[in-house]
């Protein structure tokens, strides 16, 4: 069981990695805003799924933190695009992220109890690692607007914290 979960996590990671690592072209600010908003919403949805499925206090605490922090980033991002008169633009990277997240959510939906907790925590590690890699290698260097770049840098720092927290959570569930 553990082996199959690990494989599922690896597949999701690979999907996310390819989606983010090989964009069709250097994304513009409108596309970057859409990618970040999408990534935030994916993690909020995953957290809400966890809150609906688990009773484990430390997993619930982590999920609540994800909802709270990613909502805060999204609120900030929405305020910024409004201020800049930028309309977030859907793009292949956002679409790939959503497709991979949908698949992962379906996998997690079949699990319960400790198996769900472990799979959720492992996926959180993989997801944040992937998003952090994309922020560092593509999104932050591509951002043209200084305020957007600053928000992305704050996002990177936050998501690195989440990655670390997710690693701690995953380790504690072994």
């Amino acid at each position, binding site marked *: 069981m553990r082996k199959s979960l690990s494989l599922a996590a690896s597949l999701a990671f690979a999907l996310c990695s390819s989606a983010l690592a090989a964009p069709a072209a250097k994304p513009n600010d409108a596309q970057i805003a859409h990618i970040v908003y999408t990534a935030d919403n994916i993690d909020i949805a995953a957290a809400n799924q966890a809150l609906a499925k688990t009773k484990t206090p430390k997993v619930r605490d982590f999920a609540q*933190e994800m909802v*709270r*922090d990613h909502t*805060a*980033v999204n*609120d*900030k991002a929405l305020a910024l695009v409004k201020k800049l008169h930028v309309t977030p633009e859907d793009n292949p990277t956002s679409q790939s992220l959503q497709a991979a997240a949908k698949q992962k959510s379906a996998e997690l939906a079949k699990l319960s109890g400790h198996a769900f907790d472990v799979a959720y925590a492992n996926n959180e590690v993989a997801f944040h690692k992937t998003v952090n890699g994309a922020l560092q290698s593509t999104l932050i260097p591509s951002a043209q607007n200084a305020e957007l770049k600053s928000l992305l840098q*704050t996002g990177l*720092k*936050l998501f*690195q*914290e989440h990655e*670390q*927290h997710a690693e*701690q959570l995953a380790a504690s569930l072994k």
Partner: protein
Amino acid sequence: MRVLWCGAMLAAMAGLAAAAAPPAAKAKPGRLLVVQMSNLAYVPETLTAHVGDRVAWVNKDIFLHSATTPDFNVVLKPGASGGVRLLKPGAINYVCTFHPGMKGQIVVTK
């Protein structure tokens, strides 16, 4: 007991409330030292203080943060502030329970 006082404080630094301070704490008001929670870090990260001083954390971020040790747990919403009074010498290492990479230290001397 390292910390005698811990509770909500006013957001305005100048008007810091020392409500509910016990009599022993009132006798030595000490200084007020401020640590900002900014961009997922404590600023300054290391603080030098004296026994009797008060430390106030001010959350300048858009995220919930805490300053947590086995002795106290100051949880602050964005824009909020709160603190503790330092009652004995020693090094206090604290963390944010929500963002484990956030670490700070207070070095308390007599």
